[in-house]
């Protein structure tokens, strides 16, 4: 946990003190460091859901389902951060809270809805192999939206900034450093949260199994 706290403090120092103020956008641009960090980590978490789904369908081991379920929760948390910080930045810059026609914004909203639906599906089905199978398939299909979100700013006309291009990041070096540290800090946070949630799920299912076994004896 200590490296995580250290990285978080370092990321906040980078975003607020180390990185220079953007000339046109001003102070509000500093939302960008954690907005991008959260966006990267929601992709990473949803990749974990995809991996968990494939792993479960191949091996039928419940631990893969625990990975997928934990990654979904954490991914939804990070996507919520992206969807709320984006409009807070957009209001003073684009003069609107929510640009309805923008492909990046709308595909991200769809991504959030897909995984909220995944969580609803999980909670509505009884425990068992059918639930894990349906959720694995849903998680794999849902992941198809991640590349669509990533490439939406390249495939369609958008007002969303394209910061990272094939030739690198179009930013001041200090801004790149601050962004890099923020992304690393958010990644460590994301992995820590997934590991904590997975450990809880494993302990809970083991406790249930042992309870059932004891009651049967």
């Amino acid at each position, binding site marked *: 946990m200590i490296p995580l706290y250290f990285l978080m403090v370092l990321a906040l120092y980078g975003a607020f003190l180390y990185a220079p103020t953007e000339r046109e956008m001003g*102070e*509000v641009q*500093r*939302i960008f460091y*954690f*907005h991008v960090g*959260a966006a990267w980590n929601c992709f990473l978490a949803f990749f974990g859901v995809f991996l968990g789904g494939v792993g479960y369908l191949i091996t039928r081991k419940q631990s893969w389902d625990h990975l997928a379920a934990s990654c979904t*929760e*954490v991914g939804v*948390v990070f996507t*919520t*951060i992206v969807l*709320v*910080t984006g409009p*807070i*930045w957009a*209001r*003073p810059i684009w003069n609107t809270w929510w640009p309805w026609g923008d492909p990046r914004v709308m595909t991200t909203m769809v991504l959030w809805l897909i995984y909220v639906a995944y969580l609803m599906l999980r909670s509505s089905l009884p425990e068992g192999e059918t639930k894990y199978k349906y959720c694995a398939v849903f998680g794999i299909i849902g992941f198809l939206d991640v590349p669509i979100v990533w490439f939406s700013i390249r495939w369609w006309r958008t007002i969303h900034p394209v910061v990272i291009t094939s030739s690198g990041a179009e930013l001041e070096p200090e801004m790149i450093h601050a962004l890099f540290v923020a992304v690393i800090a958010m990644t460590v*946070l994301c992995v820590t*949260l997934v590991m*904590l*949630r997975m450990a*809880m799920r494993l*302990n*809970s299912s083991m*406790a*249930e199994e*042992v*309870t059932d076994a*004891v*009651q049967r004896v």
Partner: protein
Amino acid sequence: MTYLFFGYLVIWTVLFFYLVFLARSQKRVNDKLKALSETLQQRD
């Protein structure tokens, strides 16, 4: 500056509520384990 403040306020609030959710889940797991240990002690 107000937008920046609210941006970061949202980030920490969302993370705080998720940590509260995790703490409650952990408490449920602990309760299950406690009940299990009590059941085993009664059997002994």
